[in-house]
């Protein structure tokens, strides 16, 4: 469309602002990635643009595909936990829990209460460290560099605690079928209490520094809105769907794998469904997790940390699906066992895979700079998409 109905052959094709002739903005293909800081790995996004507006977005994944579903068929159950540590590498401990719980369910083993409490504490700690990285890094994506430093700094505290309890900073491999590997070290609980109070302070800083910032609000409010029904039909889960007003948390609504019903806590939701809401929900959940850990430490039972488990783990024939609320969403394992020492088939249902699959729909019609904020606000881990 031109402002004047002029034969383009007679008229200069160059833009003339005085005559208010619109430029012909034909399609342009822009390649984002595979290396981009907003993607936590190698993720490529091919977007077709009309001017600054995205017409069509096509995510290209698979750069980090490691074939874990195939590999599990050649591993024993204790070996599989080493693999699934590396699916979502920021919250490895939370990945292990549903798999171990599924194997325990098939074997008819129940982990002792103290082991379940330690599992819950470490899962929530993985959530805090994962979300603190998000809280800082999301600021970075809208151009604020200070939150990134704060996020990386504060993330070290829970990571140090995880390391001192499990021996691994990112890949604890600490769960065993029937319990956990070791009890907590001396002084850990006192240190944990101090750190959790520090985390609560840290959340306040993020609330003031980022959420209250008018620039951050301008960049995130009303952008990348996921409608609740469509999000559910896409399989979006976790904080992303809670930010769309869906009051659904597998810690409360799923199978009672961990003693969440023994403590007092709250599921946070936001009605807006935009990038801002996703940030807001994750911030509240970080705070809630710190509070939960303080509760759990108060109620920590004593007793054994391992149930009676046969020396050779053989899982009886059967099938089960166990899902848990990972920091990124619903992480589930459908295990088919044929009575051997290793699984016959494991379907790994990862959260980021479904969360990102809404992206072609979500990115339609938004501007290029917002692509990055929407990407960052969805918060995915590439290992969690590519398995």
């Amino acid at each position: 469309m031109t402002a004047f109905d002029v034969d383009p052959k007679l008229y200069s094709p160059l833009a003339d602002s005085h005559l208010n002739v619109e430029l012909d903005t034909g399609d342009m293909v822009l390649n984002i990635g595979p290396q981009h800081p907003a993607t936590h790995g190698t993720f490529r996004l091919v977007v077709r643009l009309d001017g600054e507006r995205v017409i069509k977005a096509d995510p290209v994944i698979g750069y980090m595909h490691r074939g874990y579903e195939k590999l599990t068929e050649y591993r024993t159950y204790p070996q599989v936990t080493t693999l699934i540590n590396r699916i979502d590498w920021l919250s490895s401990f939370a990945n292990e829990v549903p798999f171990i719980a599924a194997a325990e369910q098939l074997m008819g083993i129940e982990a002792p209460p103290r082991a379940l409490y330690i599992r819950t504490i470490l899962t929530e700690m993985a959530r805090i460290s994962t979300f603190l990285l998000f809280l800082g890094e999301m600021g970075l994506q809208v151009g604020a560099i200070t939150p990134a430093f704060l996020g990386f700094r504060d993330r070290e505290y829970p990571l140090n605690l995880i390391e001192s309890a499990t021996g691994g900073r990112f890949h604890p491999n600490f769960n065993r079928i029937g319990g956990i590997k070791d009890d907590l070290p001396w002084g850990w609980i006192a240190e944990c209490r101090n750190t959790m109070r520090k985390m609560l302070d840290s959340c306040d800083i993020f609330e003031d520094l980022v959420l209250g910032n008018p620039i951050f609000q301008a960049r995130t409010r009303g952008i990348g809105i996921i409608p609740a029904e469509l999000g559910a039909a896409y399989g979006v889960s976790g904080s992303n769907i809670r930010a769309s007003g869906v009051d659904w948390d597998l810690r409360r609504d799923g199978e009672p794998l961990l003693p969440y019903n023994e403590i007092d806590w709250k599921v946070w939701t936001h009605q807006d469904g935009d990038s801002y809401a996703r940030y807001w929900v994750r911030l509240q959940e970080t705070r809630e997790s710190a509070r939960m850990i303080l509760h759990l430490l108060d109620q920590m039972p004593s007793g054994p940390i391992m149930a009676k488990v046969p020396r050779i783990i053989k899982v009886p024939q059967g099938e089960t699906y166990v899902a848990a609320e990972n920091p990124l969403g619903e992480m589930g394992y459908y295990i088919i066992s044929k009575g051997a020492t290793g699984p016959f088939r494991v379907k790994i249902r990862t959260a980021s895979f479904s969360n990102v699959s809404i992206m072609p729909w979500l990115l339609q019609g938004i501007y290029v700079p917002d692509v990055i904020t929407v990407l960052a606000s969805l918060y995915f881990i590439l290992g969690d998409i590519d398995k």
Partner: protein
Amino acid sequence: MKTRPIVGRAKAGNRSSLASDEITSPGDAVDQDSVADQDSAVVTIDVAELSAEHADLLARFTGEVGADAVIESGVAGRELVVRIEPAAWVSAALACKTKLGFDYLGFVAGIDWLPTPAAGGDDAEGDTSAPVQPKDMTFGVAGSAGRFQVFARVGSTKVARYGITLKADLKESAPHIDSWFSVYPGADWHERECWEMYGFIFDGHPSLRHLYLPHEFEGFPLRKDFPLLAREVKPWPGLVNVEAMPGVDDEEGGD
């Protein structure tokens, strides 16, 4: 580890919360009798309280989809599994979403019931790390008519602990089934993954192309007859390192 005296045998309730010198390690908390009867381990999941719930859900599902579409049903863990006619695959999804309140898509995936081949082929020597799977072909919960099955789980964001797993048999010669894309748009990527991993063709899918693998990739990796090439070319690396360091035998006329 094995020769260490067992000091930390689990004694319920009498240990202080930080007794780190009394830690029970996984290998220690074992009685010899429990090792002896490990093969006769029985699944002791308490599904009795849920069975009424499952029966109710199955009755409602059958009422919506039609009794002739439901072949078999069973319980996997705490989850209801229903095997349905492949022709009713999409109508079942539609009924689940619109009538039964399953608004949330868990996953769509495939199963190959062929027995798992031995790691590194049947003539592999020394590789004892991989589990030995049974050689006969058996089917899991709700059964199967043949080798290939597609299975999917849907859940609900409105009702707690509410989900159903659907299975459908596929012909081995022509594994075709209708796509769920029109009902659950999230099935897009799941079906693309299932197509490239198993070769199942989802009719009606908008663009069935590779998701993870390169576009020129041949074969369907998650089928049981697709060998795990890493184990074919080299035994389990944790077992023995057979690869020479680079540059060690340069006299042979390398570069």
